């Protein structure tokens, strides 16, 4: 540690008051790990600011003192993103939890970092609105999910949650405050267009280029009619072909398929073979409409896609999901699908994934290789694929529970996941919310010009490399 802890602690107390700063060993321990395989590391100090001005002062001080700062909201990501690689200060932003605006006509909301999905869902529901709820814990942060390319459900045809961003306010690593998008020009928070997309310097950057203190996000009306259409297929090839054919209509709010292992509650851990007489893949599509007729039209399109697939000899066929499972697809946010119950109820506390965006036509190749890797390592290939914005983004990931009581099992899961990531990269996939183990693989293959530009952006914004240092790997 090259900085003076006592001095930094005192300066933090001067800014925030004694009550909101701690270097107690147990406090640091509680912030040293998350759900994932990422190795625990303790921060030196944890601090809880409440205002933008306090964050500005803290970052200015951190620059003077050259002390690392890691922004933290709920600590519920599964990529170790808030585990401090180089110690320093964790800034827990949960006290900043105001919903500043919900604009019903323009359909956007402006929120602070500590606003959870549960909190936003309650506030939006009163106005008949919804957001792209992820299947994450309801206590997770909406802002952190969006700026880290988190994904939502029921809004899949509009894209990832990072594509819902309309404006943002950021405290730069050097303490200056900036507003981007329309909020930066006119003070209205409705759009990122048609201005230069400087917001990109803060999205997907894992908190290494500043602290986003306000975020504008699109919200949508809750439709009056909904249905869940469910099918099964014998193999990933048939399922992928069906999803691409049906996905091209951009009619489904959520178009997802899961392997047999992910459909089990909880995921079999360790691996257990699928019974021969059960299909390997199941898919659900959530459709919605403002009239019965609109819903019916979408159902017709789906029947057409399904028929065309079957005429081509596909094994895909209608498959009735249990009512409860169907409801779980639309009743979001959800403690049940959103917590780790379905994934790691009894595995031993660990959960990680190779979470990637992989072109849909490459899913079969990736899944078949993942299956081999996972089974070889005694893990269930509990894979999910989802299409976003029609067929534009193909999400491919494997929920991987493991037993944290045994270092050998943690290592095994981690190696399986990294191996799976290598396969995804081979076929054109890219990881999201990546732990550094993934970035090591990414940078091996990335265009050198891209890597250089990431470094330059980071250096320009954060000359002393204080923001979540090490997490982006380039610095």
């Amino acid at each position, binding site marked *: 540690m090259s900085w003076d802890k006592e001095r930094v602690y005192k300066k933090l107390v001067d800014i925030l008051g004694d009550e909101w700063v701690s270097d107690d*060993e147990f406090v640091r321990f509680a*912030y040293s790990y998350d759900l994932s395989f990422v190795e625990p590391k303790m921060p030196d100090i944890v601090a809880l600011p409440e205002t933008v001005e306090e964050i500005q002062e803290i970052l200015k001080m951190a620059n003077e003192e050259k002390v690392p700062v890691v922004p933290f909201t709920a600590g519920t990501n599964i990529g170790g993103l808030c585990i401090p690689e180089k110690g320093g200060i964790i800034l827990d932003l949960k006290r900043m939890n105001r919903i500043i605006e919900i604009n019903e006509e323009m359909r956007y909301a402006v929120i602070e970092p500590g606003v959870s999905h549960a909190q936003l869902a309650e506030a939006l529901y009163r106005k008949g609105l919804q957001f792209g709820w992820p299947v994450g814990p309801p*206590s997770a942060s909406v802002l952190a999910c969006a700026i880290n390319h988190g994904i939502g459900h029921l809004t899949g045809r509009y894209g990832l949650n990072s594509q819902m961003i309309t404006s943002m306010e950021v405290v730069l690593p050097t303490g200056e405050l900036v507003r981007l998008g329309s909020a930066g020009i006119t003070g209205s928070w409705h759009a990122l267009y048609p201005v230069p997309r400087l917001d990109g310097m803060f999205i997907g950057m894992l908190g290494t280029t500043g602290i986003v203190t306000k975020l504008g996000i699109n919200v949508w009306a809750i439709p009056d009619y909904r249905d869940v259409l469910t099918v099964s297929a014998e193999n990933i090839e048939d399922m992928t072909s069906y999803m691409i054919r049906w996905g091209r209509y951009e009619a489904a709010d959520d178009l997802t398929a899961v392997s047999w292992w992910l459909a089990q509650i909880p995921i079999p851990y360790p691996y257990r073979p699928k019974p021969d007489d059960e299909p390997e893949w199941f898919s659900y599509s959530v459709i919605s409409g403002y009239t019965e007729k609109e819903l019916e039209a979408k159902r017709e399109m789906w029947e057409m896609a399904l028929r065309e697939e079957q005429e081509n000899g596909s094994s895909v066929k209608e498959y009735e999901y249990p009512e409860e499972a169907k409801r779980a697809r639309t009743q979001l946010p959800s*403690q049940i699908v959103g917590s780790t119950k379905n994934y790691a109820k009894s595995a031993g506390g660990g959960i990680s994934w190779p979470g990637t965006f992989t072109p849909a036509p490459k899913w079969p190749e990736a899944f078949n290789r993942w299956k081999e890797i996972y089974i070889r390592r005694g893990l269930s290939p509990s894979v999910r694929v989802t299409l976003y914005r029609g067929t534009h983004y193909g999400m491919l990931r494997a929920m991987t529970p493991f037993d944290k009581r045994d270092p050998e099992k943690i290592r095994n899961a981690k190696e399986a996941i990294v191996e799976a990531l290598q396969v995804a990269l081979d076929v054109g996939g890219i990881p999201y919310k990546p732990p550094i183990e993934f970035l090591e693989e990414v940078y091996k293959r990335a265009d050198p010009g891209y890597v250089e530009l990431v470094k330059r952006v980071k250096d320009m914004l954060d000359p002393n490399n204080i923001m979540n240092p090490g997490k982006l790997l380039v610095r």
Partner: protein
Amino acid sequence: MGFKKLEELKDAVYMCTYCGTCKVAYTYGPPPLFAPICPQGERFKFDAYLGSRSKSAMAKAILTGATGWTDTLVNSLFTCNVCGGCEYQCQTDFKPEILHTIEALRYEAVKAGRFPKEHGRIAENVLKYRNPYGEDPERKEDWADSKYEGGELLYFVGCTAALRRPEIPKAAAEVFKALGIEFTILGKDEVCCGSPLIRTGQWDAAEQIMGETIDRIVETGITDVVTTCAGCYKTLTRDYASFDFKGYDKLKFQHITQYLLDKINPSSSLGMKVTYHDPCHLGRQAEVYEEPREILRKIGAELIEMPRNRGNAYCCGAGGGVKGAFPDLALETSKKRVEEAESLGIEAIVTACPFCVRNLQDAEPSVPVYDIIELVRKTL
């Protein structure tokens, strides 16, 4: 048999994924419910305090030796109300052992000498006087106008009601009388159920008196036991069940709301707009949610629910030894709960636990706080 020690709970602790679902109360609805659920987390905010996630971290820290009994760890452990609000949210296999883990951690802390001195005093009082208030056992009969004896029902009054909230046993006795139910009380011979000791980790002291508590009941030869105290009810039905006390298996415990539901036949209607506060020990921890509500309907109360009700009820702030050791925090929490109730425009707050009554009254609400039995008495 007996209390589960921390080491025995290790596997359960490792079922916690650190997902954070326990940080807030949430149900899908519709409409969705979102609300704070952890009183100590509301106060201290750090993740080291918030919900059962912090308690699994604590267990891991102690079990692996990653940290010692740091000041914050001890403070977080003992400012917890053991209310179970977090447990209600959790969906993993840690859920059934969350409260046991908190109490087992407290037991370890007590052994390590890291616990609030007020809790130590409670243990001394119970061992010496058989009640946590250090009162002369004779005073347990002060509320009673006669020594109730006979009948097929034993009314286990509990220390708080007998010594601090005499209006509750008085009301209960009048209700029994009005219904023509003969009953027995143990009076000065009634021994504390041990709840304050068990919750605060003073297990050695608890184990010294629990057998005696059951013996006194068994000696009466009566098997139907009714309590007005949510804490006694939970303790006698849940904690004692993991021991092997002689005669215990023959006993049938009921909370008074369960016992009275099909017996009362009100002669008048209360006609009062009330809200019902679920005591943690009766609701979440013993799953008695509907009987008190049905009784309120039966006596003609207009029941308006608080947003946080049943499993999502917000603790009154008293439980888990917090009232004794951290009275300011207990009051801060009860004020929040009272505000929630008052916002409904009700005429009274009703609950079914003397400890809740006391702490909610301490918040000086603008409307009276009643134990449900007091309202039942008004209508008979």
